[in-house]
């Protein structure tokens, strides 16, 4: 853990789990090993939760101005030709995987499955304005990842 407060939380949570689950301890390993494993799982869970919150927060800051027109100049006239390359395909797949759940859900429903804004808002139980904002950020994120990828290709970062 990167700070004392988080470490204390992990310690406390580990002891609570120990008290509640001690009867499930089968004695196949030492108590120390069992406790160490519990503490590791608690710590990893906490780190994962923190990372998800941070990822989601960084998505909330995505705006049109994040990419400059200069960077967009790398965009090719015939994108489909570039898209035939495995690297390019992987880049878009990775970008879609990276979308936090609440952005990916909107993107799938609106852009991949073609549901209306109204229907999407009903399905996800969020306002239509929220659907639009999330959709725009998801699209911008995917577009921006392709721009960064194209920049690397043009610079020859992939050695090909």
């Amino acid at each position, binding site marked *: 853990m990167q700070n004392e407060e988080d470490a204390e939380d992990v310690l406390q949570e580990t002891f609570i789990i120990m008290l509640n689950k001690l009867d499930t301890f089968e004695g196949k390993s030492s108590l120390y090993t069992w406790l160490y494993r519990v503490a590791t799982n608690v710590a990893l869970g906490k780190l994962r939760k923190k990372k998800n919150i941070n990822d989601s927060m960084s998505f909330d800051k995505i705006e*049109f101005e994040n990419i400059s027109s200069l960077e*967009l100049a790398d*965009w090719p006239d015939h994108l489909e030709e570039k898209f035939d390359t495995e690297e390019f395909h992987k880049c878009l*797949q990775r970008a879609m995987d990276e979308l936090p759940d609440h952005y*990916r*859900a909107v993107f799938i*429903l609106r852009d991949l499955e073609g549901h209306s804004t109204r229907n999407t808002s009903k399905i996800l139980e969020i306002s239509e304005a929220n659907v639009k904002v999330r959709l*725009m950020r998801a*699209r*911008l994120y995917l577009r921006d990842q392709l721009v960064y990828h194209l920049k690397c290709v043009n610079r020859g970062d992939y050695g090909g």
Partner: protein
Amino acid sequence: MVDNKKRLSEILTNKLSEDIDNNMVQELADYIKKCEDCKMDIDTIQQTIKLARTGDFEVLIPQGVSKRLFEVLGLDQE
């Protein structure tokens, strides 16, 4: 007339969501005539959507969304 970035962003968002009314279409057309960057934004985002739609991708629908989708559409989930 579009007079600030926030308003432009709102119009572009609506345009790309196909939730745009006739007044906005005109406002956007007027603005794009003078704004090459906006045209580039629209073109590149539309191409990205097209690639995502036509490419062979595995996109996992988040947990719970399928269930809600079936409920809203009034269908039974097998």
